[in-house]
Structures are given as structure tokens and as C-alpha cells.
């Protein structure tokens, strides 16, 4: 209730607070330069409390996220809920100010005079510069923590070795300047969380994206599958590659996504927690049937996963492993489309051979 015109020993009543706007109006007509008075009435206080409560509640109860099925998902959800809380608060505050302006400060019929000549308020401007600074600082630090916890800063997955296939060009002087180029496993993406860094994941799966299917190879057992099967509660590492164009591996329930890039290895390391079947979606435009490039991830309880793996080994011993493309009927048309592509790469290969000496 602080007001510079009120002597400190005088009690300020609610009635005074109600009178204040009209007194302000009078002042507007007396003075040439005007200054903004921060609204400090009881109403503002109640509105502030309400906005805070609504934001806190809605930030937790928006219900916009799907099921959280990985160890990483609750971390992302916690971050999102915080951002939703702040966003709801700011939304209500600013939209509220806009709506009040429209209702309260609408031009009265017949009144063609100007409003008060308020050109700014340094204090207010400092406040509304400082508040966003603090908010984005907090969100940046929080996001950094979450990203680190997910394994985004695992040194094995956070340095860029460049395109692997060309990192060491034969006969090139560049080879000497790229000491990590030969053979060392470096990929981009989300790696091990700080707790498990340096250790291998309990299950490694090679993932290949191609128009318009995913192929999963389990290197330890040689099993090849069109769906991803993983055990719950075990850390899984996906080594992701692409054959033709860029695809993106996305499982909404894991809150994880990583592009599959031709000529470059990427990885995604995570721990599925909740058993179930989840959609696996290609999230990067990859051609006419991009929307059809869907598969699924099955998270098994650990013993059930072993059973699945054994059944696959037995099955694939019987027959030659074939992976059905998502749309076999279209393969002819696709081949026609990639025809000049092959010519180009042949031409290039010959050019390279020619150039290496």
C-alpha cells in the first residue's frame, strides 16, 4: 500500500485505495508529464494469488503428454510442467492486462481527447527486462541439468567426429590432423547418463532407417526384426544409421528422438521402464510414404524379452531373414526414382578413384 503522497504515520484504508484512481485522473489533467503508478490495490493482490494458484495447478494437470514409459520421460515431463506453469502465469497476466485495457480503457463515445502522455517508466522497464532474464536463466540451467541427466552430454555422444565415411580420406594430408578419426566409436545423439558413463549399455541394437521401414539388428544374437523389442529396466543403446535419406527415430512415450543420417552414425541410449507396445514414428520427411513409415516398440518384462529373442533365433535359423519393406508394391516405382541416383554415385565413385592419385 506504499504511496509517496501518503505520510507514513497515516493509516491507509481500503476506501482510500478505491478513491485512488479518480485522484489519478485529476492529476492527469493538472500535470504535463505523468508517471505510471504500479497498481497495488487489494484486487491486484487477489488476482496475483489466483493467477499463481491456477498456473501451479494447470502446470501439473494439463494432461497433454502421453504415457511416460522410459527413465528419461519423467525428467522431460518435469521440465515441461515447469515451463507450462510459467507460461500459464505469463499468459494469464498479459492476456488479463489486455482484456482489462479493452474493457476499462475503451474510448468513451464523444471523447476525442488523448490519453495521458506516459512515455515510459524506467523502474517498470527494468523489472520486465529482469524477470524474463531470470526466467530464461532458470529454464536454461534446468534444461541443461535434464539434458545432462538424460545423457546428452556423454562425451561419447556429444562430440562431432564429422561424417565417418570421409573423416579419413585415403592419401589425404587431413588424416594426420584427425587422430580420433580411425575406428573410435563416436556418434551424435543422446548417450549414457552420468551414472552409467564409460560402461556399455546392457543391450545394443543397430537401427537402420530406409524408405519406408526400420530394420533392427541385434548384433549379439544376429536377430533381425522390423520392430524394436527391448527389455524393461535395462539400458538400451541404439546405433542409428540411414540408408537413403534422413529419417528420424521417435517414440513419443520415451520422449526421445534422433535423426538417422546417411553417412553419419548417431545414437540414442535410454532405459525403457514400463512394459507395453508403443508407436515408433519417422519424424523427418523422407518421401511420399513418410506418413506410412511407422513401426512399434515392444517393451517386454526382462524374462519375456529373453523368450522373444530365443524364438527369433530359432525362427531365423529356419528361414533366410527377410525384412518386408513397408510398401513392397511400390518398390518398382521407387527403383525407377532412384535410378539416376545410382548413376550419379557410380560416376562419383569413378571420379574419386581417378582423383586419389
Amino acid at each position: 500500500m506504499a504511496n509517496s503522497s501518503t505520510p507514513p504515520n497515516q493509516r491507509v484504508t481500503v476506501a482510500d485505495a478505491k478513491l485512488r484512481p479518480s485522484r489519478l485522473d485529476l492529476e492527469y489533467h493538472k500535470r504535463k508529464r505523468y508517471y505510471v503508478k504500479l497498481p497495488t490495490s487489494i484486487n491486484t493482490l487477489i488476482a496475483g494469488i489466483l493467477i499463481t494458484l491456477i498456473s501451479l495447478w494447470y502446470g501439473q494437470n494439463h494432461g497433454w503428454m502421453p504415457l511416460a514409459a522410459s527413465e528419461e520421460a519423467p525428467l522431460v515431463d518435469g521440465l515441461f510442467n515447469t515451463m507450462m506453469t510459467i507460461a500459464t502465469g505469463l499468459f494469464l497476466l498479459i492476456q488479463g492486462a489486455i482484456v482489462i485495457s479493452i474493457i476499462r480503457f475503451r474510448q468513451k463515445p464523444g471523447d476525442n481527447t488523448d490519453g495521458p502522455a506516459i512515455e515510459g517508466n524506467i523502474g517498470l522497464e527494468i523489472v520486465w527486462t529482469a524477470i524474463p532474464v531470470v526466467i530464461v536463466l532458470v529454464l536454461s540451467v534446468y534444461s541443461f541439468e535434464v539434458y545432462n541427466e538424460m545423457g546428452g552430454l556423454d562425451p561419447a555422444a556429444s562430440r562431432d567426429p564429422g561424417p565417418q565415411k570421409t573423416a579419413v580420406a585415403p592419401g589425404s594430408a587431413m588424416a594426420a590432423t584427425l587422430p580420433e578419426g580411425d575406428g573410435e566409436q563416436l556418434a551424435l545423439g543422446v548417450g549414457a547418463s552420468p551414472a552409467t558413463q564409460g560402461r556399455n549399455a546392457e543391450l545394443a541394437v543397430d537401427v537402420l532407417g530406409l524408405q519406408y521401414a526400420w530394420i533392427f539388428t541385434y548384433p549379439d544374437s544376429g536377430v533381425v526384426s522390423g520392430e524394436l523389442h527391448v527389455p524393461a529396466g535395462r539400458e538400451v543403446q541404439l546405433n542409428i544409421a540411414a540408408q537413403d535419406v534422413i529419417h528420424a527415430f521417435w517414440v513419443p512415450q520415451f520422449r526421445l528422438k534422433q535423426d538417422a543420417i546417411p553417412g553419419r552414425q548417431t545414437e540414442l541410449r535410454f532405459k525403457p521402464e514400463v512394459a507395453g507396445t508403443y508407436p515408433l514414428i519417422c519424424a523427418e520427411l523422407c518421401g511420399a510414404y513418410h506418413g506410412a513409415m511407422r513401426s512399434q516398440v515392444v517393451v517386454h518384462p526382462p524374462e519375456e524379452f529373453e523368450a522373444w529373442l530365443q524364438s527369433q533365433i530359432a525362427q531365423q535359423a529356419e528361414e533366410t531373414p527377410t525384412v518386408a519393406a513397408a510398401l513392397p508394391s511400390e518398390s518398382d516405382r521407387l527403383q525407377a526414382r532412384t535410378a539416376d541416383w545410382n548413376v550419379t554415385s557410380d560416376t562419383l565413385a569413378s571420379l574419386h578413384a581417378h582423383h586419389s592419385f
Partner: protein
Amino acid sequence: MTTTTPLEPNPTPPNGEPEHNERHWKDFFGFSTDHKVIAIQYFVTSFVFYLIAGAMATSIRIELATPNPDFLGYENYNGVLTLHGTMMIFLWIVPAGAAFANYLIPLQIGAKDMAFPVLNGIAFWLVPPGGLLLLTSLLIDNPPVAGWTSYPPLSLISGQVGEMMWILSVLLLGTSSILGGINFVTTIFKMRIEEMSIYDMPLFCWAMLATSLLILVSTPVLAGALILLSFDLIAGTAFFNPTGGGDPIVYQHMFWFYSHPAVYIMILPVFGLISEVIPVHARKPIFGYKAIAYSSIAIAFLGNIVWAHHMFTSGTPGWLRVFFMAATMVIAVPTGIKVFSWVATMWGGKLRLNSAMLFAVGFVSMFLVGGLSGVMVASVPFDIHVHDTYFIVAHFHYVLFGGSVFGIYAGIYHWFPKMVGRMLNEFWGKVHFVLTFVGFNLAFFPMHILGLQGMPRRVVQYDPELTSLNQLCTVGSIILAISTVPFLINAVWAWFWGPEASANPWNALTLEWQTSSPPIIENFEEEPVLWSGPYDYGIDREPKDEQSVSELLAEVKAEL
């Protein structure tokens, strides 16, 4: 109020020219060097492309009313979405910004024309061929289908001719934009009337200064990327082609080095328009002139160092993701300053809620939503979930439709009387606003939820569980399509038969309102006098003093 203030007769006719030339309607259909004619040419051309790209948007939404590909189908969907994005960006919002810049900059700084009038005409005449080339590319056998981002290797393997037409078209439009940028910067620095310091400039000029600097820094990089891409496409080089040892990620860096700033190239001019419209109709000075002016420059600077936030799930190392996250988040600060300042400008004013002001208020309110979701997607761990989903589609439509398009409409309603000399109908303007506002929110708000729930962008088919939200979006988009009808009828009718506008129907203070509506060729009868700041509403006027702006102007003239 009378149309023009009677002034003292001019003692010396300028350069012995007896009379100003008359404007002829044919001027609008040929090569002109008059910035006002060029501006109208930009407006009409870009609006035509807006309608075409909007029809494409509606057909995309009709396709997505059901989870199965049954309207456009696999064959046509990607071509339509590629053209929708490319046209909305390069043929609607960017040239519409250039239209306002062309019209307003010389008038607002008291100049007779742009610094390089012929270059200005050339810049415009690159737009129609670019647009026609793009439209034709949809009709041939192999249309461009790689999205407006045109990422290799997809863009290299899905049809040479269509992709090449797309590249040439974007190169033409980019060149036009660069030529415009050179003109705007030079005009702003060199052509202001003498009394006008850089701090007396209207904020739209500040915004265009920031925009032009962004254009000049970033657009050449896009041109470079596209030229290299075309070499890969037709000459068999391997800059980005992985089969020849090229790196597709390098293209993404080059592309986004332009295309993130492009967002600011599309929104900064509109920030400028809003900073003009709100004070006039709130009858109150802009709150924090310098803060708004500097924040435009800050946004332009920061806009250049955030591009890789489009690549958080791509081939980018962790440290780079974290750096770009922090840089992106910082943009919320200058943007927040602008939003708070606009709201503070309205607060305590005397708001005239006409169509221009409604769209301006709608802009602040909708852009806010896009800004809040923008801070969210800046966060790396959250973006890993929502990247390339409908959450992103929702976010950028709130910025570019709720932001740019609402702002462009606000600008059209505000300056139409100046440009055409006739008033738009207020009732139909309000109908237009309500339909746009309702349709827009219905079409785009549910997309946030769709993205979080698991709907990727650029798909022709989706999980049937998401059908009802998608149908809501489709209904919204149809309302949005209908909303342009009252506007079109209103604009065409007012152009020919609307009530005549006075020189200054809104009692505004910037210089463009000191000349007739529409302004004469070479803008001002004589060099205008800077008798007040651009936003000095309510200053130095006693409450009983009911002087109108034109009377004040006459008084000032008499004193000189």
C-alpha cells in the same frame, strides 16, 4: 476535418515544373519507380499468392480430416505442403513486409522516394516470375516434394526438374529481398529530413533497419546453399550428397543460417507496424520508445546466432545444442520487452477499437502464445520430444499467422485510407477480425496437443486416435478460409466506392499523415515540418484545448 491544410502558396515552384504529374491506373501494371506504386504492386501480388497458398492450406486440412490419405493422397500431398510453405514465406509474408516498407519508409522520413528507385522496381519485378515459376513446378510431373526446407538427400532424389524450379524460384525471390534490403537501409540512413534524428524516426523504420540488416547478412548464405544444392542436383557434385562423401548436415547449417533469421525478417516489420498502430488508436505515446527500438536491433543480432536450434535432433554435438539453447532463450528478453511495452501503451489509454486496433490487439495476444511456446521449444530436452511434430506447426503458425498475418491486416486497415484515399467499412472489418480470430485459434491451438501426443508433421496419414482433434483443426481452417471473403469484398468495394478519406483520418502524428490521401507523386507539396515526435499524444495540450492536428500544423506553419 478537411482533406488538406490550406498552406501559403509556394513562392518558387520546384525546378520550374508547373504541375505534379497525375497518377494513371496503367502505372500499376508496368515498371514503375514510384515507391508507392511499387508498394501497391507488392501488396496485390503477395495477397494473390496468399490466397493460392491459403487454398493449399485448406486442402491440406481437408486431407487431414480423416486419418487416411483420401483427398490429396500420397502422390500430391508433399508437393502441396512444399508449395504452401514456400509461398507463404517467400511470396506472402516477406513481400508483404517489403510492401509496407516501400510505402511507409519514404513517407515517414519525409523523403520523395527510395534511395534507388530503379533498383526498387527491379526488386519487385523479380517476384512475379519467381512466383509463377514456383506455381508451374506443381503442375509438372516431378514437383518439388522435399518441403520448404528441401533437405538433401531427399531433395536430390525426388525429381530434378521440379526441385530445380524450386531452387531458381527461391533464388529469384531471395535476390529481390536483398535488393529491397539495400534500398531500405540506404533510404533510412540517407534520406531523412534534416530535423529528424535517428531517435525521431517512427519505430517502423527502426524495425525495417533491423530487418534489412538481417536480410543482408543472412540471405546470401541461403543463395550459396541453394547454388551448391543445384550443383549436387544437376552437375553430380557432392557438397551435400552422402554417396559422394558430402555432408547433408552442412546444408542444414547453411539453410537455417538464413531461415531462422527469416522468421525475424517476417516478424520484425510487423513489430514495427504494431508499434505504429497501437499508439495512434490508444491515443497515448508508445511506452518505452528506445527500449522498443533497441530491442529490434537486439533481436536482429540474436536472430543470427540461434540457427542450430532447428537441428537439436540432427547431427549436432551436445555442446552445440546447449549453446544454441541458451542463445535462443535470450531472445525472449527483447521480445518480452516489446510485448510488455505494447500492453503498457494500451493500459490507461483511450482505445479506439476499430478494425486496425482489433487486429493489433489480436496480434499481441496471439504472438504471446507463439512466444511462450517458443521459449519451450528452445529447451533441448523438450525439443527432442516435439521437434518435427505438430507442436512445432502450432508454434510457428502462432508466430507467423497469429503474429505476422494479424499484424499485416492491422497495417492494411490502418493505412488503407492513406494508400487508396478511401475508408474501409468498419462493420465488415470487425466481422473479418472475429472470423479470423476464432478460425485461427480453432485451427492451430489443438495442434499443440496433437504434437505432444505423437503426431509428426508433414504426414498425410496419422494415428486414428487423433482424429477428433484433427477435425477440430479442419473446421477452424475452413472458418479461416471463409474469413478472407468479407475482407476481399470490403477492400475491393472500398477501393472504388468507399467514402473518401481525409489526409489524417486517425489523427496520427507520423509524417505520412501530413500529406494528402493518397499522397501525390513525390509525396509532399513541400518538405514536411517535424513539429512533434512520432508518438507525442496527449503532450503539451491543455485539457480544454480541442485543437485538431491539422490546426496545430497550420499554426506551426504560420509561425515559421
